């Protein structure tokens, strides 16, 4: 049986080792740090991804799905990375190298390193189920903590969205709503409770969010979104908008502003037993006016109390919106861009229709005809 030394020598003779200069000349290479988490926290190479050697086999395919990708592996002193290189060759990777001298020599030679931002022990515990998912991990959780998401409405859709976004650790949540909590809201608006009756919805929601997760900074706007205030509110710098508005004028205002400012909108709407969800990502996919260039006539817009809604429906649709928001904030998965998801609660059936960008879209088309906000009159029943 070989000793460790003999095995290391044998392995090193079988793999490719590159010095820092040669490694940096490898075009398009993926740099993988195979050290342990505590070593990574003390600094790593710029642009490297962290895959501890113990997880190398199980995680490498998610960071390097193409086995012909050049991969540079490093550890502290090029021993673990040598074994790691051999493992990747056994997995079929064809252009694998170990960085000679490892991180120690790199740092000693004065080459650039970066200090990772890290989560506090309390946050590591709170978000541990996210940290365990390779697609999110610490980097994704930090993105969530940095994210600023604006919720239009703290009602049926905004309730589950605000709670799940807060639980997920989205660092800043904005909430716009002018209403007061009343008894009829409690059938579905789960962010509010009996002790919030009579209070502004934004305050009631803020209390619930802060009771759930003090990491979240809640910015409240107790006002109705109009052409007068939309620019002031959006100037606060939002990465994403979760649209749970209850009326067409707001939907169109939000759409037009988001196209002009390039802010993705996660759209949800509900009526009785049916819901719709999609993502409007400006200039990459269609916008709301590509889908519906103009509002329907009043008799087709029963968006108010007369319509009614199954209490759990906004829960389903609002959590689907949240799913899209979290994916966009972390930068993973396939967002619901160009696809309108339809949910029928009675049949328990999802269906999907394609939505395409319209060249003649009045806002995001090639020759836009709408270039300033339009205040549509409210046309739901009073």
């Amino acid at each position: 049986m070989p000793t460790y030394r003999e095995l290391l020598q044998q392995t090193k003779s079988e793999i490719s080792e590159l010095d820092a200069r040669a490694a940096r000349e490898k075009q398009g290479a993926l740099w993988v740090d195979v050290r342990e988490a505590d070593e990574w926290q003390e600094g790593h190479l710029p642009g490297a991804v962290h895959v501890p050697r113990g997880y190398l086999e199980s995680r490498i395919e998610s960071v390097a799905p193409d086995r012909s990708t050049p991969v540079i592996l490093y550890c502290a002193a090029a021993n673990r990375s040598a074994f790691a290189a051999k493992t990747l060759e056994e997995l079929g990777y064809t252009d694998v190298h170990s960085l000679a001298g490892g991180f120690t020599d790199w740092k000693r030679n004065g080459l650039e390193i970066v200090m990772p931002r890290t989560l506090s022990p309390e946050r590591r515990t709170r978000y541990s189920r996210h940290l365990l998912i390779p697609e999110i991990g610490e980097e994704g959780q930090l993105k969530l903590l940095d994210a600023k998401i604006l919720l239009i409405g703290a009602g049926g859709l905004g309730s589950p969205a605000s709670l799940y976004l807060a639980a997920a650790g989205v660092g800043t949540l904005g909430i716009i709503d002018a209403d007061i909590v009343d008894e009829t809201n409690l059938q579905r608006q789960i962010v509010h409770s009996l002790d919030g009756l009579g209070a502004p919805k934004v305050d009631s929601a803020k209390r619930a969010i802060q009771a759930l997760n003090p990491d979240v900074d809640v910015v409240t706007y107790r006002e109705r979104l109009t052409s007068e205030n939309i620019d002031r509110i959006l100037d606060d710098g939002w990465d994403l908008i979760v649209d749970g508005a209850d009326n067409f004028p707001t939907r169109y205002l939000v759409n037009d502003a988001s196209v002009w400012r390039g802010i993705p909108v996660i759209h949800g709407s509900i009526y009785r037993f049916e819901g719709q969800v999609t993502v409007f990502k400006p200039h990459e996919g269609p916008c709301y006016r590509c889908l519906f260039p103009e509002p329907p006539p009043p008799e087709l817009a029963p968006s108010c109390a007369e319509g009614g809604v199954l209490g759990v429906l906004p829960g389903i649709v609002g959590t689907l919106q949240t799913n899209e928001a979290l994916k966009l904030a972390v930068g993973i998965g396939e967002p619901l861009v160009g696809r309108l998801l339809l949910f029928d609660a009675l049949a328990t059936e999802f269906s999907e229709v394609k939505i395409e960008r319209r060249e003649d879209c009045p806002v995001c088309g090639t020759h836009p005809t709408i270039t300033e906000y339009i205040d549509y009159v409210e046309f739901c029943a009073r």
Partner: protein
Amino acid sequence: MSVVRVPPVLRTEAGGAREVEASGATLRELLEDLSVRLPALGSRVYADGSIHSFVNVYVDGEDVRTRAGLDTPVRDGSTVILLPAMAGGSLTPPAAGRSRAAGPPSAAACPR
């Protein structure tokens, strides 16, 4: 025969049905047939030989505007989805006095 999915806001016009049947080799023929079977529903979607601009029609998941419009072929067994916009979110009635002090809506963009 094709299946036409009726959106919730138009169910009254379809006698409460979630799905109705209609036939035709093209969308135009199908909508004409629908207008004969259920005139109230048909007129909400289709009038004077064209589809209302605030209603989207999908044949087998594709927006007919991106296909051949009213000439889009419809197969036997196709699913046709009628989809007007839905605004609902919180579905709370506007509070008294909350109505908008808005200026006149743009005639080009608002059908009212």
